[in-house]
């Protein structure tokens, strides 16, 4: 495997970059030899499509191992088990599965996530209240350890749960075994509902848990910040629809001199249109429903050179008051979000670093250029922690390291498992350094 010179690489938020070398994995045997022989002082980190927003997939001065070429997918239609390479994407798995009238039970908001990434973040989707996070449908992980050995971990192994949500810091996911679900068609029966404010939204989302496989709400975080929005509810449909091949990435945004297009005014205008747009009711292609933003190739560029951050947190049911506090603060900052998403989670997984757990999760996008945003979020984190909430690490680029063990109380247990799996600390990321994760 060839190693490139150091080159600047940034996360999906495009807000900062670090310099690392890259090596591309072409076969498991090569990869195994590469990892066994090399012990670079700045460490190794497996990476996929760099959809993590912050520095989870960066490794300043170290080597990133590009996994996307190890992307084989084999599906047994009888057992509904898929054996998938660590570099295969969710989108590719969906295509292969749909051809057999199957579908992954848990898919995130973008299809451009590799299996390795999906495990490392323990991603979740609109079905979380029914299915839990990604690890729920994973039966087995084949992991390349720092020693160069390949180990297979089942759900009963602690190493399985250290790897789930483990931010790529326990080893390289070579292959996963995923249990797919049967679907009757390639479509979701969708019903959308406009709601005037946050309490209506919370009420409707809460009531829809039982009856709908997929629930999510788009929330308008601009203007008066009352939390109006559109609640989208869906169930797997029975009649297929024509759908675009998701392999064609759709249009790309032109990059106009790195300018930021998300201002309070444009966000407000966008949100107004989004709120008024005709509601979808009826059959929508699964892939389109699950990954609405994948239609535009590089939507992250609209924030220009300063980049943006995505802030996602979860808070227990009963702590909804925190939203009002947040909205009031954001209104004070004149910070308008172009993408606000509210979702009710079901119970979490047993992985120490997995993010989702029962409660409300809210996701916001902000340009890094919003004045006072850093301090505001720092203060908000304190309140979040005081109320027992936590943030999603795969989207983080700014958390105070001090708060990490409070948000993730099982961090030390994870650290012990990780030290046993990687005694010399071969797997490293900028996020791990910044947050002193390991």
């Amino acid at each position: 495997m060839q190693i490139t010179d150091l080159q600047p690489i940034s996360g999906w938020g495009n807000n900062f970059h670090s310099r690392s070398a890259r090596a591309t994995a072409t076969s498991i045997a090569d990869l195994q030899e590469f990892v066994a022989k090399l012990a670079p002082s700045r460490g190794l980190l497996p990476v996929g499509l760099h959809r993590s927003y912050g520095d989870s997939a960066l490794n300043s001065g170290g080597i990133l191992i590009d996994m996307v070429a190890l992307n084989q997918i084999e599906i047994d239609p009888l057992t509904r088990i898929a054996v998938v390479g660590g570099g295969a994407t969710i989108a590719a798995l969906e295509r292969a599965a749909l051809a057999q009238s199957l579908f992954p039970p848990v898919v995130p908001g973008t299809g451009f996530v590799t299996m390795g990434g999906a495990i490392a973040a323990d991603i979740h989707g609109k079905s979380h209240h029914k299915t839990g996070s990604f690890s729920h449908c994973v039966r087995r992980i084949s992991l390349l350890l720092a020693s160069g050995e390949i180990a297979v971990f089942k759900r009963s192994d602690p190493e399985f749960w250290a790897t789930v949500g483990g931010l790529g810091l326990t080893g390289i996911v070579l292959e996963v075994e995923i249990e797919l679900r049967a679907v009757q068609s390639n479509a979701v029966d969708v019903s959308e509902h406009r709601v005037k404010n946050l309490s209506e939204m919370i009420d409707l989302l809460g009531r829809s848990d039982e009856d709908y496989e997929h629930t999510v709400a788009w929330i308008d975080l601009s203007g008066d910040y009352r939390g109006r929005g559109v609640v989208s509810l869906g169930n797997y449909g029975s009649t297929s629809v024509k759908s675009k091949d998701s392999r064609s990435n759709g249009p790309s945004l032109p990059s106009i001199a790195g300018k930021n297009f998300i201002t309070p005014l444009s966000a407000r205008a966008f949100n107004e249109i989004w709120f008024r747009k005709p509601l979808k009711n009826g059959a929508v292609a699964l892939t389109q429903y699950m990954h609405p933003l994948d239609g535009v190739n590089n939507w992250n560029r609209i924030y220009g050179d300063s980049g943006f951050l995505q802030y996602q947190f979860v808070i227990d049911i009963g702590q909804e008051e925190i939203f009002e506090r947040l909205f009031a603060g954001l209104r004070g900052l004149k910070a308008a979000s172009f993408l606000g998403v509210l979702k009710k989670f079901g119970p979490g997984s047993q992985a120490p670093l997995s993010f989702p757990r029962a409660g409300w999760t809210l996701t916001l996008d902000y340009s890094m250029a919003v004045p006072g945003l850093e301090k505001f979020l720092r203060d908000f984190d304190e309140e979040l922690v005081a109320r027992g909430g936590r943030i999603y690490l795969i989207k983080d680029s700014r958390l105070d390291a001090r708060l990490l063990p409070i948000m993730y109380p099982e961090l030390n247990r994870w650290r012990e498992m990780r030290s046993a799996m990687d005694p010399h600390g071969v797997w490293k990321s900028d996020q791990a350094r910044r947050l002193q994760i390991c």
Partner: protein
Amino acid sequence: MLNGFKSMGRLALIGSGSEIGQAIIAKLMEQKKSEVIQVGRTGEFALDITDKSARERLVNQLFAKGDLDLAVIAVGVLGNNAEKSASENLLEVIDVNYLGTLHLLALIAERMKIQAHGTVLVISSFAQVRPRVDNFAYGSTKAGVDFYARGLAEELRGSGVEIKILRPGFVKSKMTAGMAIAPFAITSDECAKYAVRAITSKKVVTWAPSLLKYVAVVFATMPAPIFRRISQR
């Protein structure tokens, strides 16, 4: 590590006795929260700047617990100790300002190059523009530091490591107490503002105040008789 707002995680002030150095840290910490390591003559991170192995030990210590995002090197003596002879004073300014500073700079840059990120702020001086009778020994060391730092900054282009040079004029501080106040004099706090600007600037050299950039051109090219008269004041 820097965070998404480019705020620093860990930084070190080498020369904790320096008023300018402390003012720079105070200015940086107004908006941001970082772990600050204070390196002085005593304390956990003690350093005898004139001792080669002490410098090496310190740099190992600085990088042992994590990445360093910024090092401010603010060590220096004027070399005007009345109790010492001119040659003794000369040796001291060379040891501290030149040898000590440059060796530290080189050691830190080496480590930052491995981590592929980091900034070092070096404090030069207006005194390096042209020799003046009252401070040319000091000026010569600052000229040497400035020259080397510019070269190093060039060598490190594209490595992720940045070397920034601050060239203050007369700064009212305990180091200059009792001296006649020169034109364009600034306080340590004002100097710190320029230093913070220097750290994030794309340029290698920042003058404090900015106007000194032009004053320096005039100074450097002025005929000797006029310069002599002006510098005697």
